[in-house]
């Protein structure tokens, strides 16, 4: 069954070219990508992840607000019972901020210049095929 991925852009920056490139690459890797568009609040992201029953959430953040946004998104998702859904972050993240994000439950961080193959491989690695019960 195709892997379902939510690609979301939290916060206020208006550039979603990176998010679209990733969405396209994941589609070409056979995944179903739910793209939510710009300026998503943590609540919107958690709700979309729940309704779409995705396997993984990818956040694209270029604004520098990742330290404020990412832990909030993780908490909001956990509150909705989505603690089993991993979060990936892509964008401009200073190395010094990585430990904080990882401590907040982010499984991987992809900076500029990451190849899309690397991201696809990472998703395949961390996701065991969704159990259909």
């Amino acid at each position, binding site marked *: 069954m195709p892997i379902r991925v939510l690609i979301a852009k939290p916060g206020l920056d208006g550039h979603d070219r990176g998010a679209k490139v990733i969405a396209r690459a994941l589609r070409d890797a056979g995944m179903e*990508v739910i*793209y939510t568009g710009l300026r998503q609040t943590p609540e919107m992201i958690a709700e*979309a992840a729940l309704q779409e029953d995705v396997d993984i959430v990818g956040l694209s953040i270029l604004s520098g607000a990742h330290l404020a946004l990412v832990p909030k998104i993780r908490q909001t998702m956990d509150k909705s019972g989505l603690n089993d859904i991993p979060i990936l972050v892509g964008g401009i993240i200073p190395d010094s901020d990585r430990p904080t994000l990882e401590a907040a439950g982010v499984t991987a961080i992809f900076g500029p210049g990451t190849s899309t193959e690397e991201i696809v491989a990472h998703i395949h690695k961390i996701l065991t095929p969704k159990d259909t019960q």
Partner: protein
Amino acid sequence: MNDLVEQLLNGNRRALARLLTAVENEAANRGEVLAALFPHTGRAWVIGVTGAPGTGKSTLVTALTKAYRAQGKTVAVLAVDPTSPFSGGAILGDRIRMRELSGDTGVFIRSMATRGSLGGLSRATRSAIRVMDAAGFDIILVETVGAGQSEVDIALAAKTTLVVDAPGLGDDVQAIKAGILEIADVLVVNKADRPGAKNTVRSLKTMLELGHPGSRSQVVAHHGQLLRVESNGVGNKDEVEAMWLPPIVETVASEGKGIGELIEAIDRHRHYLANDAALINLERQQIEIELYDRLREALMTRLLQKIPGNVFADVIGRIQAREIDPESAVMAVLAKVPDVS
């Protein structure tokens, strides 16, 4: 899994999401789930929204959802987008236009990929609608992929079908072609503030005057097969008068214009179906066609299990070498299967 069914019936949204995945992935126990949910279905009003790409279906669905929410009705949205035939992946982008619906617990939106199905819906759409119906939503809006002229499957799943058109998409010959326009219960001309809207309305009117099936509970072309369902004598005291003529409603969905009129038209269609007992006919017909579909699928699966894999490769090679024509090849394949030939 039974837990999930119970949770869904108690209004748990995660259970609803998980069960939608189970039917979509055709999980082994989906039969059990659907059987348990089936007695709770049949209550929602299912509205299909179809039309060419770019006519504004997602925006219209958003506007309709807001209007129904204002009436206090709960709404589930099922938005279908195409799967790439090359990678099997899909980009499901309908939520982009639906962002203002976020945060409302009376709304549930689910995106679905077609996963290779061609009729404008996915194979699991009918089952997904039932799961949402059992969850107790008053209205279920099903948005098809951007459809052209032959994606008419939605009419087999919806109680009211909206066909959305917009100015500038083609001349009036497009409007008289068979197919998608004929399944409309309500025709919507969206983006009605754009130049050419009057022309679009006029072509649709002309099409309707030239003759329209009016009541699709008579004949439906399905997967190349014409199916006739007897109208079992209900409601034909005066066929002509009883016939439903699709109204044409002009909207500007992005500004909420015309949405009130559209909801009135949908309500009128709903009352027409209910008063005329046509609803019973429509449902009978939909069930009959669904049974044919499911039977065909089940037989096909069984049949394929009985045909050794190499027979296909062999036959394909012979057809390509022009040694045998496709129709004779089918007969030759069937001859190798006991109980069928």
